[in-house]
């Protein structure tokens, strides 16, 4: 049966000697989906990417990328429909950026005429004829992105793609990923930059010591983790304590002063509490709600509080 998922891992384990790098990891990335792959250094993110690329074989489990097993491709070369950006991408330094990209384009069977457009897209058009040895880390990273995008592959595997990019280029990069998704492509992005990946990924996969401890949308993970929602209430002068007494049950008072209250509650109680606060007008002037971000969700699951 043909699968709708572009990337599929089914109870995949990988051991190097006695050391287990990945333990029964199962996840699927659908078409037009962007999944963020998170985890501490050594959690198994890069190994997972290498398995998807067929650079190394799984000890157990099944892997499918675009419906094919990459392990079968070990030694035979990968399909052209995958774009990969390794962490700390390296190139032949004696060649110019343009020559590097043309070399990879030819290997992929992509028209070399597309190279100049790609170089312009990543902001390297002016440096294209300079040797890669003169490039900064950010410029090398941009060249890496350009080669990953060669031939508009269906699956993008990006390992720390925005390292060394300035904020403007980061934005351009994520726009490009979004465009890729709109064209039906999927992306698996490994990253430590939680705040920037938060709004750009559809789902999040968190690895801890080789185990997938969380996989779902941010809202799902937040709810499953039971992380508190923080509510900041602005009241009239001297009315804070009065408001605190009248709100009632279901929340925790974190901080109070003359005209502000900081409360926390479970995500499920949030609407109820906001309604109650609205009823306390005019003593309550304003309400700000802070749902836990990806940083807190990640901290929760990666620190060992989450389920194994």
């Amino acid at each position, binding site marked *: 049966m043909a699968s709708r998922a572009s990337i599929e891992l089914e109870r995949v384990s990988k051991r190097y000697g006695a050391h287990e790098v990945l333990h029964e990891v199962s996840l699927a990335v659908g078409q037009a989906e962007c999944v963020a792959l998170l985890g501490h250094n050594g959690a198994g993110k890069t190994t997972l990417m290498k398995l998807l690329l067929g*650079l190394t074989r799984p000890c157990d489990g099944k892997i499918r990328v675009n419906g094919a097993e990459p392990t079968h491709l070990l030694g035979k070369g990968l399909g052209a429909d995958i774009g990969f950006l*390794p962490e700390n991408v390296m190139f032949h330094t004696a*060649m110019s950026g343009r020559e590097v990209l043309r*070399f990879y384009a*030819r290997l992929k069977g992509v028209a070399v005429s597309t190279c100049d457009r790609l170089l312009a897209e990543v902001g390297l058009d002016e440096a294209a004829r300079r040797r890669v040895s003169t490039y900064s880390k950010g410029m090398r990273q941009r060249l890496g992105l350009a080669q990953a995008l060669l031939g508009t592959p269906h699956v993008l595997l990006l390992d720390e793609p925005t390292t060394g990019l300035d904020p403007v280029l980061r934005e351009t990069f994520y726009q490009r990923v979004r465009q890729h998704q709109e064209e039906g492509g999927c992306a698996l992005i490994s990253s430590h930059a939680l705040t920037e990946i938060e709004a750009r990924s559809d789902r999040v996969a968190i690895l801890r010591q080789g185990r997938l401890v969380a996989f779902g949308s941010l809202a799902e993970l937040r709810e499953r983790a039971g992380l508190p929602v923080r509510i900041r209430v602005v009241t009239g002068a001297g009315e804070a304590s009065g408001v605190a007494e009248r709100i009632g049950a279901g929340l925790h008072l974190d901080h109070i002063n003359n005209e502000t209250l900081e409360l926390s509650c479970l995500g499920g109680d949030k609407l109820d509490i906001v309604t109650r606060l609205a009823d306390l007008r005019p003593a309550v002037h304003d309400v700000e709600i802070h749902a836990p971000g990806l940083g807190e969700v990640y901290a929760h699951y990666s620190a060992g509080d989450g389920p194994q």
Partner: protein
Amino acid sequence: MRALVILAGNEIRDGLRNRWVAAIILLLAALALSLALLGSAPSGTVQATPMSITVASLASLTVYLLPLIALMLAFDALVGELERGTLLLLLTYPVARWQVVVGKFLGHSLILLAALLVGYGGAGLVLQFTGGADAESWIAYLVLMASSWLLGSAFIALGYLVSALVRERATAAGVAVALWLLFVVLYDLGLLGLLLADTQQRLSPDLVAVLLLANPTDIFRIINLTGTEAVSLLAGMAEAGRAAGFQPALLVALLLGWVALPLGLTVARFQRIEL
């Protein structure tokens, strides 16, 4: 095929950029020219053309120099890319691993061919214009150039095997130098020692022949120093050549085997490397 051409072309471009090609051409040309112009003085007394003398002396030096150049070109072909991190990206492209090995090998081998054509070929032309060559010596000279290419390619293939077997570039360099010492210096010394120790002549001539053919540099010596009458007389190898009676086709086939075997082993090893 397309991938092989792209990979070989990339290697050649890299060689040109790193001035490897230029350095090897200069070295080979300087060697051949100095032997051609300065080393052909004794030609009057033994009635040989200066080109025949050049073949004898150039072959003797090529045996030492070319394997070293070839190993230096090849030792980091795979492990160097692995260490620099460029191999990881390359192997995620639609190229088979054997294509990576063979494509890079073709590039390096063609670099050596170009250097031989310009360096040795140029010296040959100088001899031609100074009247030091006839048809027979030209044949010997062309055989020298062709067998030099095969010898160099065999050592490039050996260098590749080293490059696929070790995990660090520095180790590869050390092993490559050791290989050079073994094949170029120690092997013949050992063989000579064996023959000297064999006062009872218990070693059969066939075994000695097999031992000679088990070293690509000795095959090269046999091809070039016993190839033609004029050269073998000069090299003092006439008797040896006649006695051994090796077929030229066999010698070429063996040298080709010395290219194919290490290259095949390299591919087999490289297929299994997990990154």
